[in-house]
């Protein structure tokens, strides 16, 4: 079977070197953010100022790669103008599409820059075609990124009932919660993905070697404690070990990455239009490795879907850069739920 449309590989670019790496290794699109709270990876040392943005866009466009801009946090009354200014700058830069979550901002973009292509961010939490079609009818969105909560048949059902292109996450860090619907970080640290573009932010993290082992804390809250034989991971708060009814375990999720390579034939059949790689906070080396593998896999399946098989070398490459060195199919695979 060959799909009607070429499926786009959408790769993360947290910096200019990462952008160039993604483009040079075969990304169809890269997604980027400005250096502020207007995007959901507002981390120190990441993202693009004007000069880097211009250079990045030139590099990508010269090689036929699109640049998408994430403006996917929720503006508030007192900072609204910063978000609309970011939309204006995106249009001026010649960005290929903006990825938005806030309906008010979509209305602004639609009215002010009618030619600017709009994508609904995963932070918009639209998990059904009724939700997606609301954004389509109101703001003319052309693509929606699905939250990582639907099983494969549910993804297929959404695609069958909307004119909007569907993009899904293929690989990378796994949000266990519905994106855009999680205030855990706000509860613990006062900073959230929705309003500040940050989850479990680094400035609240403490690593402490104690007699009981390496302890990781977020704003003072013990997220995990590691024995000498264990590799201490970053204290993303939903991926710590906690105590429930006297049992200590990863009560929410293990530190693991999403990897849907083996579902690729079914995702293609379902009619997805783009695969997104997570990881704007990761290094150019990660971007290179993941982009290369996914480029190869997408090329292979689009040439000959019937004989597609996941190459062990691909999996080995991806596991090297996976969180916790392991991976999961997440919600696409029902028993995960």
């Amino acid at each position, binding site marked *: 079977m060959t799909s009607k449309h070429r499926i786009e590989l959408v790769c993360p670019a947290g910096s200019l070197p990462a952008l160039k790496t993604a483009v040079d290794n075969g990304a169809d699109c890269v997604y980027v953010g400005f250096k502020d709270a207007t995007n959901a990876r507002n981390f120190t040392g990441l993202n693009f100022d004007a000069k880097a943005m211009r250079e990045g866009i030139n590099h990508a466009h010269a090689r036929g790669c699109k640049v998408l801009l994430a403006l996917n946090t929720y503006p508030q009354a007192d900072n609204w103008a910063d978000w609309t200014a970011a939309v204006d700058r995106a249009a001026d830069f010649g960005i290929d599409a903006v990825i938005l*979550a806030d309906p008010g901002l979509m209305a602004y973009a639609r009215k002010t820059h009618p030619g600017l292509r709009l994508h609904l961010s995963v932070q918009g939490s639209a998990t059904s075609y009724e939700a997606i079609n609301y954004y389509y009818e109101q703001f003319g969105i052309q693509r929606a990124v699905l939250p990582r909560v639907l099983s494969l048949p549910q993804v297929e059902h959404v695609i069958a009932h909307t004119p909007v292109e569907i993009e899904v996450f293929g690989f990378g860090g796994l949000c266990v919660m*519905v994106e855009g619907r999680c205030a855990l970080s706000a509860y613990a640290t006062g900073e959230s993905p929705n309003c500040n573009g940050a989850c479990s932010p680094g400035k609240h993290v403490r690593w402490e070697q104690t007699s009981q082992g390496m302890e990781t804390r977020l704003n003072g809250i013990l997220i995990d404690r590691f024995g000498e034989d264990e590799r201490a991971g970053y204290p993303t708060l939903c991926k710590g070990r906690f105590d429930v009814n006297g049992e200590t375990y990863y009560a929410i999720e293990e530190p693991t990455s999403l990897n849907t390579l083996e579902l690729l034939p079914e995702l293609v059949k379902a009619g997805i239009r783009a695969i997104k790689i997570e990881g704007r906070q990761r290094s150019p080396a990660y971007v290179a490795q993941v982009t290369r593998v996914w480029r190869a896999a997408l090329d292979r399946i689009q040439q000959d879907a019937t004989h597609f098989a996941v190459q062990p070398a691909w999996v080995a490459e991806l596991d090297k850069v996976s969180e916790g060195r392991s991976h999961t199919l997440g919600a696409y695979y029902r028993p995960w739920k």
Partner: protein
Amino acid sequence: MTAPRIALGPLLYYWSRQATLDFYAGIADSAADIVYLGETVCSRRHELRLEDWLDVADLLADAGKEVVLSTQSLIESESDLKTLRRIVGQERHRVEANEMSAVHLLAGAGRRGWVAGPALNLFNPQTMALMQAAGAGRWVVAPEMSGAALAALQAGLDQSIETEVLAWGRLPLAHSARCFTARHFNLQKDTCEFRCLGLADGLVLRTREGEPFLTLNGVQTQSARVHNLLADLSQVAPRAQILRISPQGEHTLQVLDLFRSVLDGAVDPGEAFHRSHEWMIGEPCNGFWHGRPGLELCQSS
């Protein structure tokens, strides 16, 4: 300024049919003015089916309560949408929209006066105006929004809208496709044995130092602490026409009465906060209202 009205939020836990019916029979002559009904957390919970919820709704409406039917917070399947369409299709009671499918259907049906629920991520006047144009007549403030941000949003509105603030209860912090209660019992969600049923206030998750941190409630994650704005009511009341109390396993009626006493001026807010300790199912917090991490307890200035 008229005193805010008191709303009982939707029941977020899963209780047996009889316990649920008994609870709402008690609510019929409680201090609540408004009652939100329906299953908002998990589509597998069906001790009460939609027909049963509609019966409870009629009973409470006949008892003089304003009833609002709350929709499910995470829509995944066509069967979820089917239930949603039935809720939107009934016309006796108002509807609380808890995600954008509900907004789409309510707007499409031309319904007016519906309630924009706390998970819609309404953070600025521009988005609020869109909801108002789509028919929203009330909104419930996102728990993570501060009092100052709320004031700024309200000041930016061309047309005011009735505002409801969560004033008591564990904070609903996150939704997932995964069921953490089933996971705790080493079960899959599709065969969960309805383990939520035995847990009147969910399952407390503690840090490895024993500090209560979160509450596992099926696919929902809540705070372990109880968001309690009793001591802050003089700051909250000018911003909110409605105060929301979230149901808990025990003492909900006493909590409703206590809020009523404060709003009537019979009990001082500080004194009420002090008294409320015996009815809290965790330590108090109010950080979000003060623009701080939600788990903190801040003093109203």
